[in-house]
């Protein structure tokens, strides 16, 4: 294909721009990326499709991680969900499965996310409000009652106490008679992005990283179908980062985990096939698709060429996508359905393995039944009506998409060099590097909204004055907290407290050494030790992290 043409060179395009008369608008991406009016083959001069793209399922996997992608298997429809008591959440899971979702995803409440019991002083007012309360194995039993864990994959969004929530999950699987080898699912378990964005830590980085590598080693031997970590960009993006920052910081975290596991003595091909990722799908449609394609290519290149992984499954950036919660509005919530649909479409065109679509009431409350049903139907329409699943990477070869993919890869590589100069991810966190980058991007976007250079329909434009809320809002009853505490006290009374004490002591002893903690955590879980008791035992050995608040 002849690429040079007088009409398409950049200078001529700029002149066309000037001569055409433009709207007074900002044509940059939501991340502030300068975009050309149109793209041509000239923008890809020197582009080697073989090296940059490959076929789907072939290195560098730009077009998708499987040869057949959605023709072989649709993405998993996996709605992140949790509310109130384990019973209430169990009902919601059954509702969602009946409506056609194909994977489970557990959202825990704040006390649980921080490794605290429902009756901890700082849990007051928070129990069951943002997800389900889980204090012991008994709550796992209630949560998954009548749900066959051997037949459906389960994702759990938990980080600081991920390892002991996971062992409670395992202990429950045991009770259901499901062998560990049959369990499929994912643990978020990504502590680095906690310090950067989500802020759910307990200890300083090193002990958390040790728990993560312990879990990787344990699962490699005992739970081989489990994704031990979901290296996340979603939260980094929600905190206000640009697309390039989300991409770069996520993959940098991934490299850090790889390095850590190797330092801990693991062989890369033993753990890397079970690393997974989690990206945001935000409003700027094409930028998101390019970001996801770039992620696959970057990860494959680094894993193969830099870390020298031999197993091709170690090169795969498998990822879940959630549509951007921060893009949804409290104003005119009905139109959030459209935002979510566009974002979900981008996730599919970006080749995700698993997808959560937000509900229209995202900015107001936990999802109502009606709202989450519509969110799920959104995925089903994309999958079964729109036709986009019929062809793999349909935007591959687009001048714009390939140029954008390449730019994002370049920007990510620049960030990797910066992070290396700072001494790696952990040092960069201590220096507030990520936090300041993210806040700066968030602030600039907020200013752009203030100045109407960027828009949110219904918020800074097309506002409905005197708007009344017209959709049902889910409320979590205050009785949930009382009920959960009562159940917790019951468990404390009826369990073998001597066993609990001795197992917690054994855990503490092991934590002070270097042995794998997962078997000890499993013992504690089986004895109905509480989340808080386990956390407290480990805090005695590991200490608590104090954040220096950068902004």
């Amino acid at each position, binding site marked *: 294909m002849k690429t040079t043409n007088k009409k398409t060179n950049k200078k001529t395009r700029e002149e066309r721009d000037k001569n055409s008369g433009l709207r007074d608008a900002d044509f940059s991406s939501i991340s502030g990326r300068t975009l050309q009016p149109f793209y041509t083959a000239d923008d890809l001069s020197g582009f080697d499709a073989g090296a940059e793209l490959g076929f789907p399922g072939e290195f560098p996997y730009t077009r998708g991680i499987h040869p057949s992608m959605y023709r072989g298997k649709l993405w998993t429809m996996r709605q992140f969900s949790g509310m109130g008591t384990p019973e209430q959440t169990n009902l919601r899971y059954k509702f969602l499965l009946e409506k056609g979702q194909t994977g489970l995803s557990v959202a825990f409440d*704040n*006390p649980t*996310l*921080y490794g*605290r019991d429902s009756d901890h002083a*700082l*849990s*007051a*007012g*928070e129990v069951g*409000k*943002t997800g389900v309360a889980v204090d012991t194995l008994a709550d796992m039993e209630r949560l998954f009652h009548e749900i066959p864990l051997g037949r459906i994959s389960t994702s759990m969004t938990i980080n600081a106490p991920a390892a002991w929530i996971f062992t409670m999950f395992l202990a429950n699987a045991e009770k259901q008679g499901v062998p560990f080898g049959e369990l499929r699912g994912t643990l978020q378990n990504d502590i680095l992005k906690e310090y950067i964005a*989500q*802020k*759910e830590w307990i200890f300083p980085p090193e002990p958390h990283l040790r728990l993560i590598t312990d879990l990787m080693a344990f699962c490699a031997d005992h739970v081989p179908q489990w994704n031990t970590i979901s290296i996340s960009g979603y939260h980094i993006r*929600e*905190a*206000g980062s640009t697309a390039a920052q989300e991409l770069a910081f996520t993959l940098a975290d991934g490299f850090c985990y790889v390095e850590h596991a190797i330092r801990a003595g693991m062989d890369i091909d033993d753990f890397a096939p079970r690393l997974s990722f989690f990206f945001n799908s935000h409003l700027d449609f094409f930028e998101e698709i390019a970001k996801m394609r770039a992620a696959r290519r970057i990860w494959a290149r680094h894993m193969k060429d830099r870390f020298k992984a031999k197993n091709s499954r170690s090169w795969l950036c498998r990822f879940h996508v959630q549509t951007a919660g*921060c893009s949804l*509005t*409290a*104003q005119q919530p009905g139109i959030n359905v459209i935002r979510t649909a566009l974002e979900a479409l981008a996730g599919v065109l970006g080749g995700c393995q698993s997808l959560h679509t937000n509900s229209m009431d995202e*900015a*107001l*409350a936990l999802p109502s039944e009606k709202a989450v049903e519509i969110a799920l139907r959104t995925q089903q329409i994309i999958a079964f009506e729109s036709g986009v699943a019929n062809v793999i990477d349909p935007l591959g070869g687009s001048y714009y998409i390939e140029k954008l993919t390449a730019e994002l890869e370049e920007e990510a590589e620049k960030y990797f060099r910066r992070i290396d100069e700072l001494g790696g991810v952990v040092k960069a966190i201590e220096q507030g590097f990520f936090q300041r980058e993210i*806040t700066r991007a*968030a*602030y600039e976007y*907020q*200013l752009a*909204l*203030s100045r109407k250079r960027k828009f*949110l329909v219904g*918020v*800074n434009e097309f506002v409905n004055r005197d708007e009344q*809320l017209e959709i049902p*809002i889910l409320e*979590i009853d205050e009785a949930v907290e009382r009920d959960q505490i009562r159940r917790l006290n019951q468990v404390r009374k009826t369990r073998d407290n001597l066993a609990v004490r001795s197992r917690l002591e054994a855990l503490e002893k092991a934590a002070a050494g270097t042995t794998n903690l997962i078997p000890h955590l499993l013992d504690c879980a089986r004895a109905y030790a509480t989340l808080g008791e386990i956390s407290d035992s480990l805090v005695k050995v590991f200490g608590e992290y104090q*954040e220096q*608040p950068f*902004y």
Partner: protein
Amino acid sequence: MSSQKIKVIIAKPGLDGHDRGAKVVARALVEAGMEVVYLGLRQTPESVVNAAIEEDADVVGLSILSGAHMTHFRRVKELMDKNGLGDRLLTGGGIIPTKDQEKLKEIGIPKVFGPGDDLQDIVSYIQNWHHSHAA
């Protein structure tokens, strides 16, 4: 109460870690010439009010997205009143349903902000309050 820079405490009480709004507001207030004491996360009503006393703050701003706003705002207001800060401005933002905003008005928190509110409106609200309350 100083007649120089308006001093604002920004804090997130409780277990909510969503600090994007708090940080963006902190930056905006600094850009507007105020002095911001950013306490960050995992604060308690006690730690917030202690800082307000120590800093002799004009304004206390709480950021809460976890649903625990009534608990935390009530307690902070109580402690501010008990400790001679009853005349300072208590405000904040996050995910606070309209009916709860009405309840907050009743206990002396006239205005809170939410997603989509303009930064300039927050700045003006504080500046106007200060102007009409300055000694």
